[in-house]
C-alpha cells in the first residue's frame, strides 16, 4: 500500500504532520462550538430553575451566589435567588451527591421562603435506565411528588428503610437514598442563607 518507505525521518514527519493538522482542526471547531455549548448549558440550568421555583421576573443566573456546604466548609453550592420585583420569593439551589449507584447526581432544589420544597429537577445522573432514572419527574412523578410542599425541618425526608417517611423507588434504594442526601445538602444551604439574613 504505502509508497513511502518506513524510514525514521519519514515516520516522524508523517506523525508530526497528521497530529498538527488534527490539533489545528480541533482547535478551530472548539472555538466555534464554545459559545453554543455554554449557551445550551445555561438554557438547561435556566429551564431547571423555572421548574423548581414559583414564577419570577428577575434573572437568577446573574444573581447567583455561593454558600458553603459540607462539614469542613471546603465545598460550596450555587444558589439562584428568584425575585418578583425586589422581593425574594424563593431560592433554587444546585446540589449534588456522590452516593448514587453510578456516582454523581446533580439536582436543582427549589425552596419557597417558608422552607417548603417547591419542586426538584434532576440536572445530571448516570443511574441505571429503567430503575434509577425514575428519579426524573417525567419518568416517575410519584417519587418527586413526595417532596413537593414539604418542609425538610418538619418532615423526615429519608426513605422508610432509613426510618424516614418516603417510599423509595422500587428496587432503587441506593439511588433514592442518594437523592435524599442531595436534598438534605440543599436544605442545609437554605438554612445557612436564612441565618445569614437575620
Amino acid at each position, binding site marked *: *500500500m504505502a509508497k*513511502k518507505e518506513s524510514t525514521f525521518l519519514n515516520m516522524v514527519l508523517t*506523525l508530526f504532520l*497528521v497530529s498538527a493538522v488534527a490539533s489545528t482542526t*480541533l482547535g478551530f471547531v472548539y472555538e466555534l462550538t464554545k459559545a453554543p455549548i455554554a449557551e*445550551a448549558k445555561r438554557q438547561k440550568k435556566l429551564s431547571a430553575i423555572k421548574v423548581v421555583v414559583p414564577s419570577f421576573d428577575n434573572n437568577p443566573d446573574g444573581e447567583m451566589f455561593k454558600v458553603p456546604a459540607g462539614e469542613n466548609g471546603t465545598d460550596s453550592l450555587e444558589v439562584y435567588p428568584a425575585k418578583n420585583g425586589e422581593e425574594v420569593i424563593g431560592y433554587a439551589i444546585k446540589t449534588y451527591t456522590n452516593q448514587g449507584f453510578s456516582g454523581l447526581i446533580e439536582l436543582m432544589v427549589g425552596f419557597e421562603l417558608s422552607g417548603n420544597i417547591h419542586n426538584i429537577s434532576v440536572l445530571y445522573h*448516570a443511574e441505571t435506565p429503567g430503575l434509577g432514572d425514575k428519579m426524573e419527574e417525567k419518568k416517575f412523578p410519584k417519587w418527586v411528588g413526595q417532596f413537593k410542599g414539604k418542609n425538610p425541618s418538619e418532615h423526615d425526608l429519608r426513605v422508610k428503610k432509613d426510618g424516614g417517611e418516603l417510599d423509595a423507588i422500587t428496587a432503587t434504594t441506593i439511588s433514592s437514598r442518594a437523592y435524599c442526601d442531595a436534598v438534605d445538602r440543599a436544605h442545609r444551604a437554605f438554612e445557612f442563607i436564612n441565618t445569614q439574613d437575620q
Partner: protein
Amino acid sequence: MSRLKTFTNGFIKENPAFVLLLGLCPLLGVTTSAINGLGMGLATTFVLIMSNIVVSLVKDFIPAKVRIPSFIVIIATFVTLVGLVMEAYVPALYESLGLFIPLIVVNCLVLGRAEAFASKNSTLDSIIDGSGMGLGFTFALTLLGSVREILGSGSFFGMKFIEGDGMLVFVLSPGAFLAMGYLVVLINKINKKTA
C-alpha cells in the same frame, strides 16, 4: 466487486454488528432505546465515512509502520468533532449518548474499515463502503434499540403503548446480550436462505 455490492454488503451479508460482530461495546451499551441507537449509529456513520475519505486520500503518504497511529489520530479527530458539535446543537442527545461518543474512537469497526478497505481502495469506493457499513451499523443499533425498548419499557421511539413498565431485564445489560443473541440467530438464518 461492483460498487452497488460494496454498498449493500454492509447491510445484511456483512452487517458489521450482526455478522462481523464488530463494535459490540457501544452496540450493547447505548441501545436502551431506539432513538439512542439511531443517534449513535448516525454519529458512527459520519465518523466512518469521514475517516474512510481521509485515510484513502493520505494512504500513499503514510509509511506502513506508522499507519495505525495515524489512522487512530484521524479517527479521534472526527470523533471529538462530532462530540463537540453534538454537545453544542443537540444537547439532549449528547446527554444520553455522552459516555459512548468518545468510545467510537476504539470502535474496531471504524479502524477495521480504515485498515481493511480505505487504505487499499479509491476514495469513491471508500465513501461507498463507509456509508454501507455505517448505515448497516445504524440499522443494527436501531433494530436492537427498538426491540429492547418495546420489550423493556413498552414504548417505541419514546411513545408509550402500554401502562407501567415492560420486562425491565431488557433495558439492563443482560437484556442487551439476550436480544442481541436472538437477532444474530435471526439474521444468520436469513443469510443462509439467501446464500
